[in-house]
């Protein structure tokens, strides 16, 4: 029994390399010993094959001219025509720039805030106040895009908006938040952060629950201040979660949704508000263009996947956490 456990540790920890023979033997052994784990993943794998891999043949319509009556398989091939149309669009580089800009801006502001908020929640004493703040900050997640956009427009209306009125009262000359292209991304990102920061804390709170109280006890004996303990005990505990969240976010960098942008978009801020998804939406308004939107979607996926692989590699090198 004891020998076995040593072996497990040896393989896991990458300690002394066993001989090739031993490795082969232990591989078969390991598979057999953990046979149940295959059953654990089986339902999920069946799900992914059934609902994701089986329909994946649909990707080919990006290279075809999809005709519903002919079906996906029999629609005629057009090669890279849809991609070329996208790349040659007058707005192609604007779209790329805006999409990246909004995503990275949102990440820079929106990613750290839930972490700080979660650490703060964790410090606050359990009680009504903590419960209230937690629940209140979580609530905006449920506000629909339509209401959200409506409120933004109302609050920022130059003639009647509350934000504008407060700024005027303080003596600040309010900019044209809604129509000035320079302000669009800020309005979008800050409202996004407002809506999702509280929701984003949940995952870190769960990770923080795993902190070993013994570590804190020991640190207190050593005379560490509260701030130091947060910095050196709590934060490191959630670093793997932070890393994974960051990698996943990077893998979705071109996936800026169209609904809210569309509602906040107007002809005056268009040059900084138009992103890939709104572009596809508008193209679709003229005519349902499955093939074109699939092609653009595929382009997004490829870029996203490349970014995810890159970031994952960096994470693997610099920390112990990575996706694979």
């Amino acid at each position, binding site marked *: 029994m004891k020998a076995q456990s040593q072996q497990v540790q040896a393989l896991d920890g990458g300690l002394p390399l066993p001989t090739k023979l031993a490795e082969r033997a232990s591989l078969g052994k390991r598979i057999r010993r953990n046979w149940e784990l295959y059953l654990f993943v089986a339902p*999920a794998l069946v799900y992914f094959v059934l609902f994701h891999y089986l329909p994946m043949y*649909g990707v080919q319509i990006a290279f075809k001219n999809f005709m519903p009556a002919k079906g996906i398989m029999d629609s005629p091939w057009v090669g890279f025509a849809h991609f070329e149309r996208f790349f040659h669009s007058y707005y192609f580089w604007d779209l790329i720039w805006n999409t990246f800009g909004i995503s990275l801006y949102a990440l820079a502001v929106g990613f750290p805030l839930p972490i700080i908020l979660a650490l703060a929640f964790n410090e606050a004493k359990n009680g009504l106040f903590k419960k209230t703040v937690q629940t209140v900050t979580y609530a905006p997640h449920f*506000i629909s895009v339509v209401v959200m956009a409506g409120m933004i427009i109302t609050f920022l209306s130059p003639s009647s908006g509350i934000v504008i009125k407060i700024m005027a009262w303080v003596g600040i000359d309010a900019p044209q938040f809604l129509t000035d292209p320079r302000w669009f991304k800020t309005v979008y990102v800050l409202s996004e952060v407002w809506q999702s920061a509280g929701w984003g804390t*949940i995952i870190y709170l769960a*990770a923080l629950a795993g902190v070993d109280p013994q570590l804190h006890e020991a640190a207190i004996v050593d005379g560490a201040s509260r701030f130091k303990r947060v910095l050196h005990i709590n934060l490191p505990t959630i670093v793997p979660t932070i890393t994974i969240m960051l990698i996943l976010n990077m893998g979705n960098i071109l996936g800026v949704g169209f609904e809210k942008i569309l509602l906040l978009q107007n002809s005056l801020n268009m040059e900084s508000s138009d992103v890939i998804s709104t572009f596809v939406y508008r193209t679709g308004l003229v005519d349902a263009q*499955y093939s074109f939107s699939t092609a653009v979607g595929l382009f997004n996926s490829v870029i996203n996947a490349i970014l995810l692989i890159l970031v994952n590699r960096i994470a693997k090198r610099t920390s112990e956490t990575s996706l694979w």
Partner: protein
Amino acid sequence: MNVADSAIKSSRGDRLFMLGVYVFLCIALIVVLYPLLYILSASISSPKLVNAGEMWLLPKGITWDGYTLVFQNSKIWSGYLNTIIYTVLGTALNLAVTLPAAYALSRSDFVGRTLFVIIILVTMFFNGGLVPTYLVVKDLHLINTMGALILPVAVSVWNLIVARTFFQTTIPRELQEAAQIDGCTNLKLFVRVVLPLSFPIIAVMALFYGVGHWNSYLPSLLYLNDDAKYPLQMVLRQILVLQEMTAETTGAAISGDIAKAMNSKAETASLLKYAVIVVSTLPIIAVYPFLQRYFVQGVMIGSVKG
């Protein structure tokens, strides 16, 4: 430096730190609370005053028409019921599929886990689109059944990865090894040791998935034909349809019939928008405080010792 001295010193620093924490939380509270109160007030205020920007915090020109209209709708209660059923069963399925898989993938001694992870990650980027997925659902004879709403979303890659990370980082490896040495099978290990240690992540997963089901709209639009089976979000969207129409048809002269229809709704439409938000989200917001107790530090380790 004696111990008592340093304790006092650090406690002064700690008090300052805690003050900072509370000030930060208070600011967060105020910033977030204002728009929420605004929504509550707007849902019972005269739409004219709301749109003119005259109602800015407390309700003005109080009217309950928005709520009356929502609850007058005969489908709203069946919608609530359907949503609760879909959410409970759907979330149960999600947990049953996600947690074991996430645990297996968290085990470094699980041969083939990198392959599985990559197989799963690929689906995050490449999907066949609406039509092929619809055909799969159709071929499984799920159209117009509850299965169409919960099976195609049985696992979310994102959640699976998050759960795996949790297992990887918080379940002590020594614990698993010890259990295995004791001759504990993987199933027993998972059910008796790992799960009881994982209440926080179970709560998170239940919340993420549950909220997903609660807010879900597209699958019911695509796969359901019978409006008796519509979930709440679908019913609410139907109530809001005319409101949406006004936005899309601005300026376009369609017909007198449509214009009059929209006008008779216009007054209440903007009220409804807010009332609908309140009606659809209050129940799910109310759930959260009950889950919060699983996010308290030490809750897990305590359970191990106990």
